[in-house]
């Protein structure tokens, strides 16, 4: 069970308070109507699922209700950093 630092609450809380919401930094296209079907499918369906460093979107569901990002190693389950939506990760490999 993960020990997760919420960047909004600024403290470590147990994983039970959080929900994972998939890959982070998936931006909604600004002009959906001019996306091809392929572009739209990539936006809604296709994800990296890497072995190793992964940027993930989580929500502090039973806490502050804020979404934030986690950089996590999917092999070791280490959390390298957590950061707010709109910020960029500092750990990328």
């Amino acid at each position, binding site marked *: 069970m*993960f*020990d997760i630092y919420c960047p909004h609450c600024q403290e470590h809380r147990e994983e039970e308070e959080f929900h994972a919401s998939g890959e982070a930094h998936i931006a909604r296209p600004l002009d959906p109507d001019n996306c091809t079907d392929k572009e739209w499918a990539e*936006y809604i369906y296709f994800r990296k699922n890497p072995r190793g460093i992964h940027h993930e979107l989580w929500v502090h569901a039973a806490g502050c209700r804020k979404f934030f990002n986690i950089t996590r190693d999917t092999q070791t389950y280490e959390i390298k950093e957590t950061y707010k939506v709109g910020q960029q990760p500092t750990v990328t490999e």
Partner: protein
Amino acid sequence: MTQQNRLQSGGRIQRNKALSFSYNGKTFKGFEGDTLASAMLANGIDVVGRSFKYSRPRGIVAAGPEEPNAVLQLGATEATQVPNVRATQQELFDGLVSNATNGWPNADMDLMGYVGKMGGRMMPPGFYYKTFMYPQSLWDTYESFIRKAAGLGRSPLENDPDTYDHLNQHADVMIVGAGPAGLSAALQAARSGARVLIADEQSEFGGSLLHSNEQIDGKPAAQWVAETVAELSSFNNVIMLPRSTVNGYHDHNFLTIHQRCTDHISDRAPEGQVRQRLHRVRAKWVVLASGAHERPLVFGHNDVPGVMVASAVSIYVNRYAVAPGKELVLMTTNDGAYQTALDWANAGRKVIAIVDTRANPQGELIEKARTAGLKVITGSAVIDVQGSKRVTGVSVAPIDADGGRVTGSIDRLSCDTVASSGGWSPVIHLSCHTGSRPVWNDDVIGFLPGETVQRQLTAGSINGEFNLKGCLEQGTRMGAQAAVNAGFEANVDAPAATAAVIAQGPAMALFHIPHNKPTSRAPKQFVDFQNDVTAAGIELATREGFESIEHVKRYTAMGFGTDQGKLGNINGMAIAAKSLNKTIPETGTTIFRPNYTPITFGAIAGRHCGELFDPKRYSSMHKWHVENGAKFEDVGQWKRPWYFPQAGESMQDALNRECLATRESVGILDASTLGKIDIQGKDCREFLARVYTNAWAKLPVGKCRYGLMCGEDGMVFDDGVTSCLGENHFLMTTTTGGAARVLTWLELYHQTEWPELEVYFNTVTDQWSTLTVSGPNSRKLLAELTDDIDLDRDNFKFMDWREGTMAGVPARVFRISFTGELSYEINVQANYGLHVWEKLFEAGAKYNLTPYGTETMHILRAEKGFIIAGQDTDGSVHPYDLGMGWCVAQKKPFSYIGKRGMAREDCVRDNRKQLVGLKTKDPQAVIPEGAQAVKDPNQPIPMTMLGHVTSSYYSAFLGHSVAMGFVRDGLSRMGETVYYPLADGSVIEAEICSPIFLDPKGERQNV
């Protein structure tokens, strides 16, 4: 019964506290301080079970959690039955009732024993895999055979009467194991002021020191233990947990500890006490001081009762004052095990011989044994054991220098006990739990903890340090280091307690003792006792092409018992490696997973059982529903009235009555469970326009609107009515089951995509009671309860809402309809809900106000063709599939969620399944929901399926059934006939029609 194997003196037992216990219906005596295993051995109980495959008699071989055979059923009553208790870990208490679990009809006189050979032939290695390839019918035969013959214990048939709980803990330093290394570590960490948690699976702290003859700081080891425990007790920053097995080491230094609080006291926990507790520990730093398990050697008939692991013999002699026999033969590959022969001799029992596999062993203990006059046979091995229910003798033969073959003639020695030692395997289980792969070490002749990402240190024999002095030093250093790492001040060079170093010669890396015959023809040489895996079986597996140890394990079932291969896995790997001409590390590694030892369901569940298993949600009118005979249905965690049967009514009778009353006069539904989200902020409208498919820009204050919500793929996922409460204030309703998901969805888009919109969300589901009053007399009824809401049909129109008082309390009243009737939803603060509900019934008696539940609600809405998101949708249908294109805006400036998705090629193609009404040819026939539509019921199976029924009911008001369902291209097939073939062979014929069966023009609600 006398305790014939009990020594006259010594041990840590309380001889003045005699306890009686029963095993297989017979009563025996033991002492306080005994384990069940030591008491059984004291009483000369040799056979404690039968082996799984060959049904061979088995005895106790170990003294700790690695014991594979003495796995018993405990419990004096049906409710207190506990299966799979290791007798070696169960403390004796007065009145303990135990039974062997393996053996039919019983362990001692086993019918299966006579057909054991047949069992063996029927279950060769790979039995399961080979069997599963055969037809199912044959498996049934095998299965009943296996079930009767084996099975490890049984579940109780009555509820467990005891209480279990969970406790969350935070520690700066968590120490696993309270042997010399763990205790030394705890002392250093405690002195630093860190919060220390130290847990050990045994009944008292001390680990191997509880049976050691060694000295620490010039005192007997046990005295050092007592003094150390006393000092630890004096710190208020230290929690000590004996009888507590650290069973799991999870991510981010989260550990689970299974504490047996009262299992040592009585069959049931004493009044007011918790039987077992699961500690959930988040530790800053962890010191693993979990020790090592001695490996037995693998040799012919090494499973005969009386063959034991060497250190276990010492433990029974020294700690429990039990000599489990009279005449001992010890076989060893190392110096350390000589201590067992010395202990045996000290107990006044006869050592027949020490058989050392090494040609020329040199070391302090060997000298000691020789000086004591013990016979040492070098360069030899015990290749076979005689006896069936007890050892009667052994065959000893010389072996070559690498232990590969027998080199000379065989001698017979008579004895009743055989102790063997193949060295020690560090207990690395916990270090493996989070994915660290152990590393083989040739000097240790064992696996050591591998690299880890955990904040973890290791100390003592887990590192292959088998000298007491080294264990004390490592523990001292690592305890201080863990405290420093956790942010405390400690001296990592602090002096450790001292102990003498016993000079030892090199051990021999030998696992499998050769026989003069090839392994396949030699007497059975057992590797895994619980699953009857033999050396020959492992060699067969490698010949059949299984080269990875993980495959060998699955093929032979090695390590798959409740002991998880604690004794056998390394031996099995060594045999597989040798057979494959590889080294052990080349063959693979061994990975352990939680739990370290089996844990009870009680401890896992804690208080999360019965009433506390899952929260239940009740509306504020729940009491009334119960008093008025409602049948309930679970909707998420809500208990919703399903229908309100009256005396003598069937469910259909009740539904008919409820529907007719509502359509003809007035009915009432408790709709409080609908999700309600309060939305405020200046950008509410814009936000709603982006998450709903229809338009919201112009909805005036005082108005309500139905909305459809889609995902980015264009598929409907929720719906509901949203009302404009103020210029910047809306109230959104959602489906009962979708409430939490919708709120999270809104927050997700607001926080990650459109943070520039000023909008706030708050769930208010529980704050409001919703009373839906529906039917032609609803307006008249409401008029009696309000004097400040103008209910006039032209002043309070359909899809309006008004604020005022209802039955004297503040209320919001929404004129919306899910039944097609004149209908009002009254929202009041939840604590007024019951009051208003009761006032409505007082005034409503003259209108025959009738309560109805979810089932009548479903029928009434289905008559009107209204969908229920989640019943008539399944994540694969868009609004046009539902015939709800009217609810999709074309000209909204922002490309709202779902718009682009609905335009995908797959969504706009022809031939999609579309929701239609279904009118059965036989008006009384109700098509089962889920039934599949076909065009030609006479088509051979598999038929071409066109869709399925999503909602189907009998309508008492219309006098015929009503149904909705998907049919391929259904919207352009109006009037066509489809068929629903059912599982019973019958076929229901239906005509495709509009789903609106009642009042298509909406005249009933516009009155």
